[in-house]
C-alpha cells in the first residue's frame, strides 16, 4: 500500500512586508559591497505604516546612502502612495554605527571579529537540503510557491493584471506518494489589489474576474512547466477571505529575517534559525547556509542519495566545522557516514575558503551592484534566474571518488 502524504509550502511576493525588509537589508549589503567588497555589514530593517526602521552596523571604507537605498527598493517593488507605502515620503528611522577603515587597516579597527582570517565570524548551526523532486533539486511545494509569487509580481509590473498591488502570498500543497510528488492538492493565492478590481463578494464581477485572471495568467503558465499538474480535484483558493485592498506595511509590520522558510526549503528541511538577508556574505549564518546547500546538492547530483539534508556546525573563530552530519532519509546509495566522510574529504568547508571559492563578496561588483537584493525574493536556493555558485554541481566527481564510486 503506497503511503500518501501532503506537504505544503508558502512563498510571498516582493511586496510582502517581511520581504520588503529582506530586500532593503540585502540592497544595503549590495550597496556596501559594490563600493567596498571587504565591507562588513549587518543591516536590519523593519517596516510599519509609513515608516522604515534601519539598524545598520558597518565596517567599510565608506558608508552608503541608506535612506536612498531603502526608498529606491520600495519604489522598485512597486509601492506608491496609492497602494499604501509612499517611497518618497515615508519616514525612515536609521540607527547607524559605522567604523571607517582605510585600506589595509581593516582588521585592527574591526571590533569583535576573530583574528584568524579563515575562522567563522560567529557560531552557527546550518542546514542544507536537496532532493530529486525537480531539476533544480528543490522540494516541489516551495519551488511552485516561488514561481506563483514571481508570476504574480510579473503580471502586476507588466500591467497584465493592472489591478494587482504588491503585497501577496502563495501556498502550494503537493500530494506525495511514497515520497514522490503525485498531484497538486491545493493552491492558495492571496494577493493585494486596488479598487479597480471591484467587489469580491459572492459572484460579483470582481470575484469572477480575479478567479479567471489568476487561473489564466498566473496558474496556467506556472503549472505548464511543472512536474505535477492541477486536476479537477485540486482546490484553488484565490483571495478566499475576500477583499485585500489594504496591504503592505499598512496592514502588517514587517521585519528582516522573518521569512526563513520562504528563503530556504519551505519547511521541508530543518533550519538553523539564522536569517540570511542583511548580513554580509562572510557572515557564517549566510555562507554556512549556502555551503550546506552546495554540499547537499552535490550529494544528490552525485546520486549518492535522492534526498539529502546536510548539517554543519561552526564554532566562532574556528576554521573547520565542528561536525558534518548527513541524513538521506533512507534514500542513500551508501550509508550516511560514508557520505559524511566523503564530504569532509572532498569539499573545503572553511569559511574563508568558501567566500573565496564562491567569490561571495565580489558578487555585487560582478553583477553591476545588484545581487543579494535580487536573491532576497523568491528564495535563495534553486534559482534559475541567477548564476548562484552554491547551486553548481562541480563537486560530484570528487564526492563519487571519495566514496569509491567514481569509476562506476
Amino acid at each position: 500500500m503506497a503511503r500518501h502524504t501532503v506537504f505544503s509550502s508558502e512563498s510571498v511576493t516582493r511586496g510582502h512586508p517581511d520581504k520588503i525588509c529582506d530586500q532593503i537589508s540585502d540592497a544595503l549589503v549590495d550597496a556596501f559591497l559594490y563600493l567596498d567588497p571587504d565591507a562588513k555589514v549587518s543591516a536590519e530593517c523593519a517596516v510599519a505604516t509609513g515608516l522604515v526602521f534601519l539598524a545598520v552596523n558597518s565596517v567599510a571604507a565608506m558608508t552608503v546612502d541608506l535612506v536612498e537605498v531603502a526608498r529606491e527598493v520600495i519604489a522598485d517593488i512597486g509601492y506608491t502612495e496609492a497602494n499604501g507605502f509612499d517611497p518618497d515620503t515615508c519616514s525612515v528611522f536609521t540607527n547607524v554605527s559605522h567604523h571607517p577603515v582605510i585600506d589595509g587597516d581593516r582588521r585592527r579597527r574591526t571590533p569583535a571579529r576573530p583574528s584568524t582570517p579563515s575562522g567563522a565570524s560567529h557560531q552557527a548551526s546550518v542546514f542544507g537540503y536537496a532532493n530529486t523532486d525537480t531539476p533544480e533539486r528543490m522540494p516541489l511545494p516551495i519551488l511552485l510557491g516561488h514561481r506563483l509569487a514571481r508570476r504574480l509580481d510579473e503580471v502586476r509590473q507588466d500591467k497584465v493584471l493592472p489591478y494587482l498591488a504588491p503585497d501577496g502570498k502563495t501556498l502550494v500543497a503537493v500530494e506525495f506518494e511514497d515520497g514522490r510528488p503525485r498531484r497538486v492538492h491545493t493552491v492558495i493565492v492571496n494577493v493585494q489589489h486596488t479598487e479597480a478590481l471591484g467587489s469580491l463578494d459572492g459572484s460579483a464581477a470582481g470575484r469572477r474576474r480575479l478567479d479567471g485572471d489568476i487561473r489564466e495568467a498566473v496558474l496556467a503558465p506556472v503549472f505548464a512547466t511543472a512536474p505535477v499538474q492541477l486536476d479537477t480535484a485540486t482546490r484553488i483558493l484565490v483571495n478566499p477571505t475576500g477583499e485585500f485592498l489594504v496591504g503592505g506595511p499598512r496592514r502588517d509590520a514587517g521585519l528582516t529575517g522573518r521569512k526563513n522558510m520562504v528563503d530556504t526549503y519551505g519547511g521541508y528541511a530543518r533550519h538553523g534559525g539564522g536569517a540570511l538577508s542583511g548580513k554580509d556574505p562572510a557572515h557564517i549564518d549566510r555562507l554556512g547556509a549556502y555551503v550546506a546547500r552546495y554540499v547537499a546538492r552535490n550529494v544528490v547530483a552525485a546520486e549518492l542519495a535522492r534526498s539529502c539534508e546536510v548539517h554543519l556546525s561552526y564554532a566562532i573563530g574556528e576554521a573547520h566545522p565542528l561536525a558534518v552530519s548527513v541524513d538521506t532519509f533512507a534514500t542513500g546509495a551508501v550509508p550516511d557516514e560514508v557520505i559524511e566522510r566523503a564530504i569532509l574529504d572532498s569539499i573545503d568547508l572553511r569559511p574563508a575558503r568558501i567566500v573565496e571559492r564562491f567569490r561571495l563578496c565580489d558578487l555585487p561588483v560582478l553583477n553591476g551592484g545588484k545581487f543579494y537584493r535580487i536573491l532576497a525574493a523568491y528564495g535563495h536556493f534553486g534559482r534559475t534566474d541567477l548564476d548562484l555558485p552554491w547551486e553548481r554541481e562541480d563537486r560530484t566527481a570528487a564526492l563519487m571518488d571519495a566514496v569509491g564510486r567514481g569509476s562506476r
Partner: protein
Amino acid sequence: MPGTAPVNGSGRPPLVVPVFVAVPGRARLRVAGLRGRPGLAYHLQDQLSGRDAILRVSANPRTGTILVLFDARRLPLRNLVSAVVQIRAGAPRKPAAAGRPSGRPPSAERPAWHHLPREGVVGKLGAAPEAGLSTGEAIERLALIGPNRLPSPPSKSSMTIVLEQVGSLPMLLLGAAALVSAVSVGLLDAGVILAVIGINAAIGYVTESRVARILASLDSLAEPMAFVRRDGREAVIPAAHLVPGDLMLLKPGHEVPADGRLLGAGGLAANEGFLTGESAPVSKDPAALHRPDTPIGDRTNMVYSGTVVTEGVGVAVVTETGSRTELGHVRALAGEAVAPPTPLERQLEETGRKLAMISIGVCGGMFVLGVLRGLPALAMFRTAAALAVAAVPEGLPTVATTTLALGVRRMLQHRALVRRLAAVESLGATTVICVDKTGTITENRMKVGVWHVGGADVLPGARLSVVGADPSASNGRQDDTGVTPLPPPADVERALTIAVLCNEADFTRDGQGRPRAEGSETEAALLLAAHEGGIDTAELRRRYPVAAVHPRADGRNWMTTVHATGDRHLIMVKGAPEEVLDRSSRWLDQGEERPLGAETRRAILRANARMADQAMRVLGLAMRESSEGLEMSAGTEPPDDDLVWVGLVGLIDPVRDGVREAIAVCHGAGIRTVVITGDQSRTAVAVSRGIGLVPDDRVRVLETSRLAQMSEEVLRGVVREVDVFARVAPAHKYEIVRALQATGEVVAMTGDGINDAPALKAADVGVAMGGRGAAMARDLADVVLMDDDFASIAAAVEQGRTIQANIRKALRFLLATNLSEIILTVGALLLGMAQPLSAFHLLWINLITDVLPALGLAVEPAEAGVMREPPADPREPILSRDALGSIVRDAALMGLGSLGAYAMALGRYGPGPRASTVAFSTITMAQLAYALGCRSEERSALEGLGRSKTLLGTIGGTAGLQAGTVIVPALRALLGTTPLAFSDLALVAAGAGVPVAACEVLKARRPAPGRGGGHEGHG
C-alpha cells in the same frame, strides 16, 4: 435658526456648538472639524474678521474652538453663530455682506490663486499686466486695504510689569498686613511693610523694563523695499505700500514682499524654507496650473511673502498683502501656541503660597494662644502680624527676580539676551536642546572642501601648486602599487575651468573691494575656489564665451554649458556625480583621456561616498570638445554624453568653532542635543559624527518629511530615541517639541525662521538667532542669541543652573531663618516667657538681616561641577523632602540656640529690653553665620570662601548694621535695644555660633545624595 442650538437641519451633529457665551459680546464656540485643521482656523478667522460688528476672532485648531469678540448690540449671538455655521458649511457669503464697509480688498473671497490662469488672476485683481497699477489706484487701494505689514505683537506695558511684580500672593498678603497695621497698630509699622513691598517691586520693575529696552533696540528699523511696475515705469517703493494688483519685480537675493501669482519668469527659483521647510530652492513656472488643494510648497506658479528669490527673475501680480499672506497665516497660528509656565515659576509660586498660608496659620494660632494666655490683644496682634510679615517669604520673588536679572546681565556678556526672566531657570532645567543644523551647528556658507581629480584628493589652496593627497583617497584596489600619483596641475586646472565656465555665479566687489561671488551658494563657492586657486575667472570667461546654457531640470540633475572656441565647441557639465558619470565614457588621468572602466567608475563613486561621509555636497565635473557646428536653440538637448570625466568637487558648510566642545559640555551636563535639519539623513549623520553629537557614535536619525502624519504614539515612542531629525520642515519642530515635552523633557529649541515661531513659543526655552533670524522669531523667543552661537546656549545653561542653585540657597536661607524666628517666638510663648522679639525687631530682621544675605547668596559664583551633574528633574520640588528636613533642623537649632541665650539673659536681667536685645542679637548673628553655611548643600561653609565676595560684603555690612542697633543711640531708640556687655556678647556668640557649627557638622555627615564628582577641581 432657532435659539442658540444651531443645527444643520439633517440631524447630524451640529457644526457649531456654543461653549461659553455667558458674557455679552464674547463667544467661545466649538466648531466641528476645526481641531487639528489650521487651514480651517485660518479660513474662519479670515472670513469672520472682516465682518461688521466683529471685533476680534481667534480660531484655535488645537482646542477646536473659536473665540469671537463682537458688538453684541449690533450683532445678536444667534446671527453670529449662524454666520459661523455658514462659513463652516462652506456656504458662500451673502452678496449683501460684500457691500458692507468691511475694509476688505476687492478680492474678499481669497481665491485659490494657484488654481487660476494668469488672465483670470489679472482680471480678478483689476491689474494691468503691462503698465501696472496707476499710482492713484494704488493709493486708493492702500487706503482701503491697509499697509502690507504684519501686525506686531503688543509689547508689555510698564503697568503690566508693575502689576506682575506686586500681584503675587505673598505680596498681596503683605499688602493686607500693611492695611491692617495702618488701621490698628500704627503708620510706622505699615510704612515699614510698604517699604518692603516697594523695594521688592522696584527691583523687579527695573530689571524687567531694562530687558524690554534692550530688546526693543535689537529690532532693526530698516524698512524693506519692493520693486514694482507702476504707471508703466519701474519703481522702488516701501514694501508696506504694496497692494493687491501691483506688479512686483523679483530679482535674485531679494525677499518676496507679498504673495503673488507669477505672470512671467526666467529661470526663477525661490527658497521657501521659511514657509515650507524645504531647504532647496523651488523652481517656478508661471504657466503651471495647480489643483486648489495643492500644498504651498508645490504651487510653482506662486511666490510668497517672506521667501527669498535664489535665482532668475520674474514678474508677479500681488494677490495678498499683510496678514492675509501665507506668512500672516503662519503668524496667526503661532499666536495660538501656548508657553507652559517654567518649572521655577510654578514652584516658587507654589512654595510661596504654601509658606504664606502656613505662616499666617502659625501666626494666627500664636495670636489666639497669646490671647488665651491673657496677653494684651493689641500687643499680641502687633507681634503676630510682625511675625507673619517676617515669616512670609516675600523676599522670595525679590531674591528670585534679582538673581534672574543679574543672571540675565551675565548672560548678556555671553551674547545671550534673555527676553523672559523665568526662561533663565528653564535653561537650568533643560534636558534636551533641539538645534538647527544650518547656521547653529554649521556656518551656513558653502566652501570647497576638496577636489578629487585623477584618483587623488586635492585640497583647495591659495595656489593650486599646493596640492595635497589623502592616502585614503587612492582608491587602493584600483592600482597595484597602492599609491596614486598626484594629478598634474593641468588636470586640476581643467576641473577648476569647468567649475568657472559651467557656472552662473558672478563676481562683485564688496565694501572693502574684495571679490565676492554672487549667485547660488554652491556656484559662488566654486567661483571663489577657482579664483583662490589662481584662475583668472574673468579672462577664462572672455576666452570661452557661453553659447548656450541648459540648466538642471526634473530628472536631469546636471547642468550643461556650451562654449564657443574658434570653430569648435566646448561642452561642460556639472551635476550629480552618478548621473554625470553615467554620461561619461572616458576619464582624465595624468593628462590623458583613458577609457572609463567599471573599476574606475567604482573608485570614483567610492570617493564620492567618502566625500559625502564628510558631510560634503558632491558634484561631478565633465566636459568634451565638439567640432560640429552646433545649432544651439533652447529646445534641443545638448550633446552632453560621451563625456570626459574630469573629477569631483566636494562643498562643505563648515562646522562652527566651539560647537564640538559645547556639545561635549552638554553631554557632561546630562543634556541631550538633538539636531534638526532639512538635509538628508546621510549628510545629517556625517555632520553629527563630526561634532560628536552622540558619545558612542551610534547616530539615530529619523528622516521624515511628513512628521505631522505620524501618529502621536509612534512619534512619542521614537522621539526620545532620535538624535537627528532629517528632512524636517521647520513647521514640524512644533510637533517635535510637543512630543518631547509629552515624554517629560524640558526642551530648549533654537530657531530663526518665521515657521519656527510656534515651536519657539511652545518650547520651554525658545532660542532665537539674533544675527540672521526673522524679527518674528525673536519676538516670540525666550532667549535671543546675538552671535547665533551654540556655545552660547551651553553657557546660558550653566548660568541657568547656577541661578537655580543660588535661588535654592537663598530659599534655604530665607526659610530656615524665618522659621527660626517663629520657633524662638512661639517657643518663648509656650514656655511662658515674655516675648523675646518686638514687632520692630521682627521687621528689622525681615528687612535687613533676611534680605541682604539672601541677595548675597543669590549672586554666588557657579559652584564647581555645575555642568557635570544631570539636570534637575523639573517635576521634583525645588526643595526636596531631604532639604526641607534639614532646613527645619537648622531652623530648630538656631531658634533653640537663641531661645537658650534669651533664657539665660532672662535669668540674668529679667524680662525687659536687655534680655530682648540679647535674643535679637543672637538670632541675627546666627542667621548671618548661617548664610555662610548656605553657600553649598554639600561643602563646608568656609571652602572657597574667597570667591564669594558679594556674600561676604553683604554679611559684613549686615553685621555692621546689627552692631549699630546696640551702639547707635537713634537705632537703639527705634528698636528699643540696649548696649551689651562683654558677657552678653559672649552669650550672643555662643547662642549664635554653637547651633550654626552644629549645622555644619550635620551637613558634613550627611551622605551626598548621588551627586558625585562635585569635589573634583574647580570650574
